[in-house]
């Protein structure tokens, strides 16, 4: 039941400002603010926090991040030449500065010494929101994946973006002029762009200095981006395709054979708008004609990677593919109803024809998607993990559900009280930033709804579900007790300022600090730290 104690707010305003009316519509049982711990500080975590503070202005939100610096993939995933997308971090700053919000960077979750166990967080909060994304990349599981010259696109992206984990990747781009990218998502196209973009343009971005140095020595001038399915099934988005098509002195080479058949889907007019525009763009090709191009890129379709080949079992020399064909003819799928057609065409499956082909290259990138992994200690707090799908099982609104054990006992699937998830760990590693925003909002809304309706949340160790939680004060003690050097928002701002200062010296927005020890040295002084 909702109790309204507000003196007077006009009808329109009540509708207009959710925060104003929500303050007075707490359920009788919830007379205190909710305490939420968010694990992960990428867009999913921040957008959830933003929405939560809007829906429950009283909420106390603490965010835990294993790196000293926030923003997750906005900082370490979004390509340096997409500053517009990186701008979304500016909105997130508003959240971070809110009086009810705490940031705890450099706090890894886990049971090892120097980590904060989930069991030391859960007792102090009403809800835990997992928004830690996808920290691994999918493997192809084909022979030769460990050869020198086979790189994970995730590692490469992390490396050029200055992610500490890959600070020492040091990719060798001097082995040959051809690189193969396996997979056709936007990460694949980002990698392609980084390999082929004119250096003078990359220099203006926040691409790390050591990456520019390595890229300037690169011999790669031909990148083949190869996918298992066709041009209308590939997961790239049109913006990224267009960027490559319009890149200065870069030519686009259509696939070697069968291009007409692949791209001239009849009737073109009846294709859903999104696919029609992709087809038109691909057909038009690059602004720079191939004859005038200095570098080239090519799309290859209907080829599944079969093996990485080498004659000395050391250095990659070629990639073997198996030819694929569509399960059913594309034109059969066009019914005229755009949403149905879109799903049908995008979902079209392929099967192997058995024919084999070979592409010679000394460099190959595996870019077939990311994968989430469970956090250490999930079992201790009753959070399940779906290994097959690589997500935390949830009811699609964001409530974590246990497939085997519910509130009524074993065998009834049900919501694990107080546990929520958002972002890639909730729905899998797909979608652009707007999809994560929608998704995070959905989760935040459902937390707010559950809170207002008096749903069960986490209870204190003494079983008292209604007592105020220790929240930040208590968890801070746990962090200190373990000797973890946590980084506050204020301290991140110092790191941020230092990065901007270093960038300014080089005439760019920022020069990212690539090592955790160096980030901490900005705060504590050099020589005093033995972190990392």
């Amino acid at each position, binding site marked *: 039941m909702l109790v309204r104690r507000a003196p007077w707010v006009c009808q329109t305003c009540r509708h207009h400002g959710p925060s104003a009316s929500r303050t007075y519509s707490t359920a009788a049982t919830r007379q205190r603010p909710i305490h939420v711990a968010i694990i992960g500080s990428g867009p999913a975590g921040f957008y959830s926090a933003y929405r939560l503070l809007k829906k429950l202005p009283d909420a106390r939100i603490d965010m835990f991040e294993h790196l000293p610096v926030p923003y997750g993939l906005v900082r370490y995933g979004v390509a340096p030449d997409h500053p517009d997308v990186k701008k*979304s971090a500016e909105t997130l700053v508003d959240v971070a500065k809110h009086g009810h919000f705490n940031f705890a960077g450099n706090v890894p979750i886990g049971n090892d010494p120097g980590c904060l166990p989930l069991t030391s967080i859960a007792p102090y909060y009403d809800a835990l929101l997992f928004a830690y994304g996808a920290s691994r990349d999918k493997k192809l599981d084909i022979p030769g994946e460990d050869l020198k010259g086979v790189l994970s696109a995730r590692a490469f992206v992390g490396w050029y973006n200055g992610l500490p984990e890959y600070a020492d990747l040091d990719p060798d781009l001097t082995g040959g002029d051809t690189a193969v990218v396996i997979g056709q998502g936007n990460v694949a196209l980002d990698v392609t762009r980084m390999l082929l973009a004119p250096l003078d343009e990359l220099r203006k971005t926040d691409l790390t200095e050591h990456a520019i140095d390595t890229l300037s020595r690169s011999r790669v001038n031909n990148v083949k981006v190869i996918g298992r399915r066709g041009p209308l099934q590939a997961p790239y988005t049109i913006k990224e395709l267009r960027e490559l098509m319009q890149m200065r002195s870069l030519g686009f080479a259509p696939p070697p054979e069968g291009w007409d058949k692949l791209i001239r889907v009849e009737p073109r007019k009846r294709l859903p708008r999104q696919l029609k525009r992709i087809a038109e763009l691909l057909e038009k090709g690059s602004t720079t004609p191939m004859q005038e191009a200095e570098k080239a890129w090519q799309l290859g379709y209907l080829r599944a990677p079969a093996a990485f080949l080498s004659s000395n079992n050391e250095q990659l020399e070629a990639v073997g593919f198996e030819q694929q064909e569509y399960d059913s003819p594309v034109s059969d799928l066009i019914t005229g109803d755009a949403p149905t057609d879109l799903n049908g065409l995008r979902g079209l499956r392929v099967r192997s024809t058995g024919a084999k082909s070979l592409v010679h290259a000394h460099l190959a990138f595996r870019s077939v998607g990311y994968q989430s992994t469970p956090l250490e200690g999930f079992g201790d707090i009753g959070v399940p993990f779906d290994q097959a799908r690589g997500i935390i099982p949830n009811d699609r609104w964001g409530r974590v559900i246990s497939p085997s054990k519910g509130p009524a006992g074993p065998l009834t699937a049900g919501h694990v009280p107080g546990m929520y998830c958002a972002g890639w760990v909730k729905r899998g590693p797909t979608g652009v930033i707007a999809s994560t925003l929608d998704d995070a909002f959905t989760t935040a809304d459902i937390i707010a709804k559950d809170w207002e309706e008096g749903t069960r949340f986490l209870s204190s160790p003494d079983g008292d579900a209604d007592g105020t939680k220790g929240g930040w004060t208590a968890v801070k003690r746990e962090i200190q007790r373990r000797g973890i050097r946590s980084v506050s928002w204020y301290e991140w701002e110092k790191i941020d300022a230092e990065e901007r200062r270093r960038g300014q010296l080089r005439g760019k927005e920022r020069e990212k600090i690539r090592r955790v020890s160096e980030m901490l040295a900005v705060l504590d002084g050099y020589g005093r730290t033995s972190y990392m």
Partner: protein
Amino acid sequence: MVQRQCIAATTRAFSTCTLSRPASRTTPPRIHNQLSHQRRHLHQTQPRTTRTPLTHLQHTFPRRNTPKTRTFTTTPARSHGDLTPPKPGEERHVTFVDKDLQHHTFVVADGDNLLDIAQANDLEMEGACGGSCACSTCHVIVESDEMFDRMEEPSDDENDMLDLAFGLTETSRLGCQVVMRKELDGVVVKLPSMTRNMQASDFAEKS
């Protein structure tokens, strides 16, 4: 008289809003924005008959003339909420239909874009990229074909982003790219309901 009522109402609504805020730390810009929008909104709901549009708007946008004392505009992305008051005789009307089918009509000036207008009035529209046409969070659907045709053709960049928007229609636009002008006076746009992740196809088992 109207003026006094107005201030009284403002104070009342303002104090109800602030009750839950912490006393010590700074109010974040966005939430600060909300508070001022509510105040602003209250003014707008007062009877308009006795006031000329000019005084009404001077009153409605008090911050405009004192930019140095503003607390919340340090970057372009955060400047939503700063709308230009229309010149007398050049008031344009724009109506947003939210997902609950509520109509919200605002009097705005030429040159303001729909994203800024919506955010200044605290409608549920996000601009994740700060209005730089790099995301699709400010997707709107223009209600009439005729009005849609009066707008300038969307650029390739805008269409590229629209292709990713949920619930794309023939008359979809990005709010940040639609700039008010004389021809668009009276335009009605719908805000698509935010249910992208509830789409069945998004949850199909991935092979």
